[in-house]
């Protein structure tokens, strides 16, 4: 008798990931399911992963044939070329300069590479994560700087005033925070917890983390009075402090508080 009730409940998984950090032993499995790499049925996982692996090998081999990659090409660059080929965006020549979106891909791939050991899993996760950012979140991501300003205004209007006085609001590292989803900016354990939320359906967490960073380094930021210096500092925040920012306190308590606030902001616009 076959078991048919071994299906993961996507909705429950999303709700759980929104509220708690995923247990690390299940993280990759849950991410793969949420990103649609494997279906919710346990029974299909082996078969579907065989297809995914074949596709990986097909694309990888093709890039070798057209001499886009060699054995010495770094893994993240291999992933980028694979992603470009699959999207029909492979440049005519590997020597062409990279586009801004390629840099975003590489940053996310580098961070993912450190979290995921298996290269096939890793490629699929990066590929589908980046696609999710492009497809599902494209419009919301553009709104995030505005939401950040509104949220910061509620949390600490003095800090917002200071940032505005130094004309920093338009120059904050939005690319790093929102497009790269903090890849290369936060240590791995924090990044995983932020990505749990992004993958399970909320890119507003990115605003929340950005504001927490601003609040944490408020003294330092208030002492700086020029946009370049502030931006430079924020792009290279000391990593030992950041785990605490994304710590339990923030992600469990303030996050739901923030969700309510964000909802308020959204509702007030209607």
């Amino acid at each position, binding site marked *: 008798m076959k078991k*048919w009730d071994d*299906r993961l409940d996507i909705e429950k998984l999303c709700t759980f990931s929104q509220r708690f950090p995923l247990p690390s032993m299940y993280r990759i499995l849950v991410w793969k399911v949420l990103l*649609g790499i*494997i*279906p*919710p*049925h346990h*029974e*299909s996982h082996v*078969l*579907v992963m065989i*297809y*995914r692996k*074949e*596709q990986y090998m*097909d*694309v990888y081999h*093709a890039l070798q*044939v*057209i001499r886009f990659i060699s054995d010495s090409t770094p893994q993240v660059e291999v992933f980028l070329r694979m992603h470009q*080929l*699959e*999207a*029909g965006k*492979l440049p*005519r020549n590997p020597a062409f300069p990279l586009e801004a979106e390629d840099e975003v891909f590489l940053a996310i791939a580098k961070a993912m590479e450190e979290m995921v050991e298996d290269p096939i899993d890793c490629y699929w996760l990066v590929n589908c994560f980046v696609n999710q950012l492009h497809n599902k979140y494209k419009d919301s991501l553009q709104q995030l700087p505005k939401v950040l300003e509104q949220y910061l205004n509620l949390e600490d209007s003095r800090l917002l005033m200071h940032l505005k006085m130094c004309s920093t609001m338009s120059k904050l590292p939005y690319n790093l925070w929102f497009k790269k989803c903090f890849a290369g900016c936060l240590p791995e354990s924090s990044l995983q917890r932020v990505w749990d939320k992004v993958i399970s359906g909320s890119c507003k967490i990115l605003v929340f983390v950005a504001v927490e960073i601003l609040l944490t380094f408020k003294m330092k930021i208030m002492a700086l009075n020029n946009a370049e210096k502030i931006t430079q500092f924020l792009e290279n925040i000391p990593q030992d402090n950041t785990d605490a920012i994304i710590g339990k306190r923030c992600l469990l308590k303030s996050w739901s508080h923030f969700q309510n606030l964000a909802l308020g902001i959204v509702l007030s616009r209607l």
Partner: protein
Amino acid sequence: YLEDVKIQARGQLQAVESRYKAQKRITQAFELEILDLYGRLEKDSLLRMRKLDENAEAAE
């Protein structure tokens, strides 16, 4: 239950379809590469012919 079977089938179908689409992209990339390589070969043989002409002229 029936819904379940359908969802499961759809999951498998999506994976096979994506593998097929990737293969199609590969064909396109190979096509471009072949055109490019033919272009390079032709340029090379043109160059060689010009060289031969020049040598012939020099020899005259």
